[in-house]
Structure formats: structure tokens, C-alpha cells
């Protein structure tokens, strides 16, 4: 039987809301994570014709990424002028909660949002390259470059010259 749109939506929520919430929670507090999850699925309802039928989660992550970015922009707008002026004095990296690995968390925090996101989607959300392409809205080749550069920058931020991945990947990419 073909589901009605509403039933299909309920199933989509049942299937993926925990993953979307986890995505948001790893990057924000509980309250924001709940809000982001709700907004992601509101977008999914409005754009239900565009939600991939087979593997919707990467698409939902893509929306979540935007919703979270918007949430952060709103938060910045809510800050006092003084805070904004202090921000102008030098951007302080937002902490990244990397469980049990403070050095990694600090290194991730020093990356650009784009670099950090591609790595976290790959390893925290465990997305395949095909899924990353959907979530990030980029081509396969662009993804390979982004992933490669993000790894390289993270390794640099970790200050670990012994990490062999850098040389191998650069040679492979050249």
C-alpha cells in the first residue's frame, strides 16, 4: 500500500529523528538540538517532494547543517554589541566536544567550519562518500578534495608530524 504523505512523514521521523537529533546534539546543547531537529523536519515536510525516498538521512543532515548555521547566526545577532565588539578583536574558536580527547577537540575547533563539518560527517555520523555528496551538496571530486584538505589541516592542527596520512594523500592527489 502506498502511504499517505502524512504517514510517510511519520515514518521518516520515526526512522531518522534520533540521528538528526544526535547530529545536532553533538554540535549544540540539548535545547538547540531539539529545536534544530524540529525545524529540520518542518523543512522536510514542506520539501517532502524533494526528500530522497531511498536514503533520506544525508539529505536531512544537509538541512540540519543549514538550520544549525542559521541558529548560530541568530545567536550571534542576539549577542550584545559589546560581545560583538569583543568578537572583532579576535575570533575565539568554539569548543568542540570530542569525547575523551581534548587535543583532538582543540584541533577540530581550530579548523574552518567547512573542514570540521566534512570530517565530523564522515566519522561521527559515519556517512559514506556517496552520502557526503548529498549532505554537503557537492560533487564527488570536490568532496575528495575537501576531505583530503580537511584531513591534512586537522593533522597539522594536531601538530603530529609523524602522521603518515599527509604525505600519502598528497602524493596520491597529485
Amino acid at each position, binding site marked *: *500500500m*502506498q*502511504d*499517505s*504523505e*502524512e*504517514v510517510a*512523514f*511519520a*515514518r521518516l*521521523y*520515526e526512522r531518522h*529523528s*534520533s540521528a*538528526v*537529533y*544526535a547530529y545536532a*546534539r*553533538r554540535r549544540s546543547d*540539548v535545547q538547540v*538540538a*531539539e529545536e534544530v*531537529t*524540529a*525545524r529540520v*523536519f*518542518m*523543512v522536510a515536510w*514542506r*520539501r517532502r*517532494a*524533494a526528500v530522497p525516498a531511498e536514503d533520506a538521512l544525508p539529505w536531512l543532515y*544537509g*538541512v540540519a547543517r*543549514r538550520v544549525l548555521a*542559521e541558529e548560530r*547566526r541568530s545567536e550571534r545577532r542576539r549577542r550584545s554589541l559589546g560581545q560583538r565588539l569583543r568578537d572583532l578583536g579576535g575570533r575565539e574558536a568554539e569548543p568542540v566536544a*570530542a*569525547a*575523551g*580527547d581534548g587535543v*583532538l*577537540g582543540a584541533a*577540530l575547533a581550530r579548523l574552518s567550519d567547512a573542514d570540521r563539518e566534512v*570530517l*565530523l560527517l*564522515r*566519522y*561521527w555520523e*559515519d556517512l559514506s562518500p556517496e552520502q557526503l555528496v*548529498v549532505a554537503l*551538496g557537492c560533487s564527488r571530486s570536490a568532496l575528495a578534495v575537501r576531505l583530503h584538505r580537511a*584531513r591534512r589541516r586537522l*593533522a597539522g592542527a594536531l601538530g603530529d608530524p609523524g*602522521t*603518515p*596520512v*599527509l604525505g*600519502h*594523500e598528497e602524493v596520491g592527489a597529485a
Partner: protein
Amino acid sequence: MSGIDQLGQRIRAATPAVDGAPPPLARVIAAIERERSRSWWARRVAAGRRTVVLALAGVLVAGGAAWAATALLSGASVAPAYVIANPGVSYGVPITSSLAILPIRAADPQGGPPWAMRVIRTTRGLDCIQVGRVVNGQLGVLGIGHAFHDDGRFHELLPQDSLWLGCQPLDKHGNVFFARGPSVQSASALSLAYNTTDQVRCNLPGFNGGPRCPPAALREVADGLLGPDAKRITVTTGGRTFTIKPYGRDGAYLIVLPSPADANAGPYGALDHAPPDAPVMTAYFKTGQTCRLGHQCPAIGIDYASPTNPSAAQLESPVHVTYQPHGTGTTSPLLASDGAGMVSVQQPGVDPGPARLTITFHAKIAVDNPNSFYDFQITRSVVNGCFGGQYLVGDGTDNTITAGRVVQFTIPLDAACHGTYRVRVFYISVPPGEDLPAVNVAITPFAGALAGHTRTPTPGHTVGTTVTTIP
């Protein structure tokens, strides 16, 4: 283990544990319903949209990219793929004598053909607003701003497209009230509402959750009808205020402003984004009342007929339920008449499936306006494998029904959905222009999708009840 794996493993090992849980589905649905039920008619329009699909027929590709009002080539009309031909169904059909463009124009912030509007009266007692840009006395949309593949041509809007731009019922004196606030629209004048965003193909990179148009391709547009008591509208935007006088007996207004700089910054593309510096539009009335457009504006100067309030004796009719374990496999139309006085309502968007429940009753009270309808609700057992929850509520009839006709609802069921079904058929007459929270909750189509949903509203006036057991 390779170096790639070592780095990846290190990141993966540091994946933070997650506490808390996603919000309950009911909260998300409530938020969606709040959006959908900003007005009663928004909900009805949204329901109708399921079967009315706007298509851009035969779009002409190429053409001059540089266009001008005086030398604008004509392209294909904007034509809906589905046209309601029955004057008694849904919104009805446009009345031929009501197609004139109102003699008001709004200049576009970037020049080109001016904006205009017309009010189309339908056979079901509705007035529908249609907004577009005017070229040679015709209302249409332009192939700019990523619409119509930027073909630079003029595409005439047909009256049927009024279905997409909202309708409101008339009051006892033929007046209408439709106080719409500013919303972000395509510069082409093609409405971004109701999923027509698929027709405006803005392709700013990096967002796959919806179209994302550059600000130059967007406008902030407000249009509406404030009725015979409207006096003036003040518009405050960008630090300045100006006043416009509503036109004619309908109190028509049309305001076109540049798009806010961050109108495309939201996660929803151009839609639903309400920047903090959105224009403030305040309507003033002869009665001394005021309201802010886009917010809750009461229908000032409008005298709606009282909703029908029939007695139980006038309404009561036996309700019959039949169960078919194997359907025909064919998809019923949304609504069809078999020529023998029977109206069949297939719940929209649902395939009949292999099993179905059919509810049949005689409509003793006629439905002669869009604000009245029959509907059903079902309470059933909780059964493993039967998706849809304990409560089912229909979307209601959406057509004129003469007294004495047989009305039939068909509800597809999962094969596992056995047990006892308590069916209630009811009749509702809604005061036009009002939100009725109890009704909105009760008739939400999501009620059937909510497993564990605990609300058991009994809206409207009961026609009849029955109990049936599905083996």
C-alpha cells in the same frame, strides 16, 4: 592500519555520547499545523494542493535575455496541469465576468513592467487574488529571476492560477477580507507559495534544502483586500514611512518592495524567512480600528453569515461501514460522482491499496458553501503492524452536496489492521475567516499518523456512529 584509518579512527573514537532525545513527533506536527492553519483557508488551500499541480506548459527556451516592457516577447502561458472544471467542487471555477485587472499598479524596485492584481470570483462564493506583472494589458509573470529558465519573456497568467494565490469567502453583502502581510516572492511574480518554488530555479550553491535565490531575484510583496471600511495603510521600511490608499469597495492593496538583503539566508531558501527588519504594514479603518498586516487581523467591516447549526434530528442518518480485504488496485479520483446521486471521496494522496474500509451515509443537510463539510473519525484497537495509530480523521468533503445524496469515504488499510473500529461521521460549518483551534486539531490529517496520539476530539455535529469489526 593505514594513516588514514588512524586519523579517522581517532575522530570516530572521540564521538561524543548523546544525551536527551528528539522532540516528540506531535510537537513537530503541531508546529507544522500552526504554519498550515494560519487561516482556515490556508489549510483548505494546502489540502487542495495535493491534487492541483502547477506545471509550466511548453516553456519556450532561449529568447532575449534583455527584456523591456515595450518589447517583451510572449512565451507560453502559466497553465495548471489540473483544472477544476466542476463549479461545485473545491474552489469552483472562475466567473467570466470577474477577470478584469484592477486599475492599481505597483512599480517594481528594479524597473520593468509594473505589478498589478485582479480579484477572481468563483462559483463557490470565493474571491481569489491573482498578482502578476502587466504587459499590454495582460497579467503574467516574467522569465527573470531564475523563473522560466530566465527566458526573458512574458508568460500570461490564466485565471485558473488564482487557485494558487489564496481565496476567501464572501460575506452576506458580497464583501471579502484578506489581510495578507509582506512575504518574499520571486521578482518574476511567479508565486513561491505552495511548492511552486520548484518552478523558480534559483541555484545559489551550498544548500540542498530548497531553492535559494539571490536578493536581486526576490521582492517583498504584500497584497490583499481590506473590505469597504479600509481607510489607509502605512508602510514603514528602511527607516521611512509612506501611506497608500486602498482601492475601491474591496479595499485592494498591492505593495512591492525590494527584497531584504538576507532574505535568502534562511535555511528554507526564500520561503518563510522573516528577517527582523521586515516592513511593518498597518491598516487603518473607518471604524477607528487598526491591524498589522500579516498578523492576526480581524475581518473588520465584514458580516459573515452565521455558520449552519443544524439540530441532531436534521442531521442524523445511519452510517454504514463495509470492509473489503482486497481492493481493485485502481486509484480512485479525489472526488467523483457516479451519476446516481453518490459522491465518493478518496482520501487524498492515498492509494486504495489491497484492503479498504468504506463509510457510507445520506447527507441530510446540504453543503452549499466552502465553509461546510462532512468528515469522519475512527477510533480503533492498537494492533502490531498496523501503522496509522489509534485514531483516524479524514480530510472531509470538498464539494457542493445536495440534501439526500449518498456520501462515501474510502479509507485504505494495512493488512494487519484488524480489530474493532468505532466510526463517527460528523458535519462542520466553519465561520469564514476564523481559526477554530478545536477543529484544526481535530481534522489534522496527522492525527491518523500519530501512534500513541491521545487526543479524542469530537468536532462538529454528529451525523451517526457505528461499530464494525475487521477480522
